[in-house]
């Protein structure tokens, strides 16, 4: 009997559809040509030039500082939010769920503009701190959703058994609950980090003087400046993002075992 080829073809088409543009971008980052039109030979020229672009590296530093800080805080807040959503029921938690869920569906422009208006009316100076707050705001939702999914799979009888056997609340949480939740929390944290590093729209609105992040910088380079530098930079970003993604997947797979 002939094997059905359809799944294979569909998979191949999906992969091409998703990854062909990225492959072309990566190839072009090694192109000596300034425009992607023709292949002018293999070159690391753009990578070399990238090293000397201080403004870009300052933007990278801003992005990483915000990414790390926003990830830490949003993971903490998001996890506690998920815990509250899972353990308690009632109208309050229903409202809580809706509020946590909303940022996932609110358009980014709207969120960026409203955050800007908020900061301005509160008289907060725009800068790294406001970008950090904005990123925490939208990251919490993602973290809470991921951790919540993990909590719903969790067998709470294990925690109860620990309590029966004499573990205090703190010991049970620290030695039983958290290790069981850890893969979910880590995956959520990595997701938050990726989202924070990627964000352009919200960051653009709430950024202040001296706090240009990498995505903002890249957008402004498209009009003025050298497009191939963006290719080289994007390639580096892609490598970083893919590494982070692979780790996330590893952690989520462990859950199934």
């Amino acid at each position, binding site marked *: 009997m002939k094997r059905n080829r359809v799944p294979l073809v569909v998979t191949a088409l999906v992969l091409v559809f998703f990854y062909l543009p990225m492959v072309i971008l990566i190839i072009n980052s090694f192109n000596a040509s*300034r425009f992607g039109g023709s292949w002018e030979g293999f070159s690391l020229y753009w990578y070399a030039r990238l090293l000397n672009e201080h403004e870009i590296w300052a933007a990278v530093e801003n992005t990483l500082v915000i990414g790390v800080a926003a990830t830490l805080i949003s993971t903490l807040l998001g996890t506690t939010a998920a815990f509250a959503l899972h353990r308690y029921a009632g109208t309050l938690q229903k409202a809580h769920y809706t509020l946590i869920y909303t940022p996932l569906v609110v358009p980014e422009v709207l969120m960026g503009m409203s955050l800007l208006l908020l900061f301005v009316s509160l008289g907060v100076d725009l800068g790294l701190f406001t970008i950090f707050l904005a990123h925490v705001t939208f990251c919490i939702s993602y973290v809470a959703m991921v951790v919540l999914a993990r909590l719903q799979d969790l067998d709470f009888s294990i925690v109860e058994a620990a309590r029966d056997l004499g573990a205090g609340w703190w010991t049970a949480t620290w030695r039983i609950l958290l290790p069981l939740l850890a893969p979910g929390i880590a995956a959520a944290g990595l997701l938050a980090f990726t989202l924070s590093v990627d964000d352009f729209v919200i960051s653009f609105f709430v950024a202040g003087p*001296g706090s240009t992040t990498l995505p903002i910088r890249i957008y402004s380079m498209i009009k003025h400046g050298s497009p191939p530098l963006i290719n080289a930079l994007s390639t580096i970003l892609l490598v970083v993002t893919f590494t982070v993604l692979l780790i996330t997947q590893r952690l989520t797979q462990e859950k199934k075992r």
Partner: protein
Amino acid sequence: MKRLCAALFILALAGGCAIDRPTLHVFTWSDYIKPDLIQRFEKENSCRVTIDTFDSNESMYAKLKGGATGYDIVSPSSYMARTMWRQGMLQELDRKQVPNLSHVDPEYLKIALDKEMKYSAPYMLTVTGVAYLKNRVPNLQPTWAVFDRTDLKGRMTMLNDMRETIGGALKFLGYSLNTTDERELAAARDVVIRWKKNLAKFENEQYKTGLASAEFLLVHGYSGDILQVQEENQEIAFTVPKEGTSIACDDMVILKDSRQAQLAHRFINFMHAPQIAAENTEFVRYLCPNLASYPLLSPETRSNPTLFPSAEVRQNAEVITDLGADNAKYTKVWDEIKAAE
């Protein structure tokens, strides 16, 4: 790690810690100032300069209009500078603090939107013109009539921008490219429809790669774009039609809520010191309209029509202005052009 901790600490302080040296915040396009000049300015004035970038006039405007503060100097295009001035977002320039503005090219000021430099100082100029491949289009006459050449049929493009392309036809007919006269516009429409038969398409981006790879032989485009492609293909030449063309300028303006107004004035003055302006022109590869800086430019730059439009070109050029309600007239004509066979 130590650095990260320090950064996080600063973050915790809400970035509000005071720095002894005053800081000037510039909000501009990317790669638009020679980095050495910034360092020199910092040293001379014992201050710090931060550069932040935006990607379009509109997004910058939306952000500032939304209430974002902290920036001192912004470099919008002329039309946006005028809008910002009318909205009361800008300070009036104190000319006593910027004596170097006397070097600004009077030829340019004749056509500028802010002729008295009341609220803006011109920063960088670009023109729209015609780029072509020297080896494939010999003996090109610098006129808009090139788009009537049937021997180049299907190998030419014009900008997909109603003001630029209709403007070209208006200049060809000897009218102002800011006209609101419907008869003149109708005549321009017929010219563009005639040209359209010879065009491959109306194109804003791909004409660069198309020209570099000789897919197109002659394109209507911005000088800044053409300069970039010229690095790729030595055969590319640029010329400005003798009937005149459009000229665009990015200005330097000081925001009303600037906390460093004095330093901002000093910065504008610094950028218009002839030596500095010349260096900046050579680096950015647009023209800073500073008359006293022209003799200091390298002969190579001065003889490059893409970088250095001649006095004649600057005289015949016009700045595209925002026509407000009359914009609809152009939209109507443009729709008719697009619909024509």
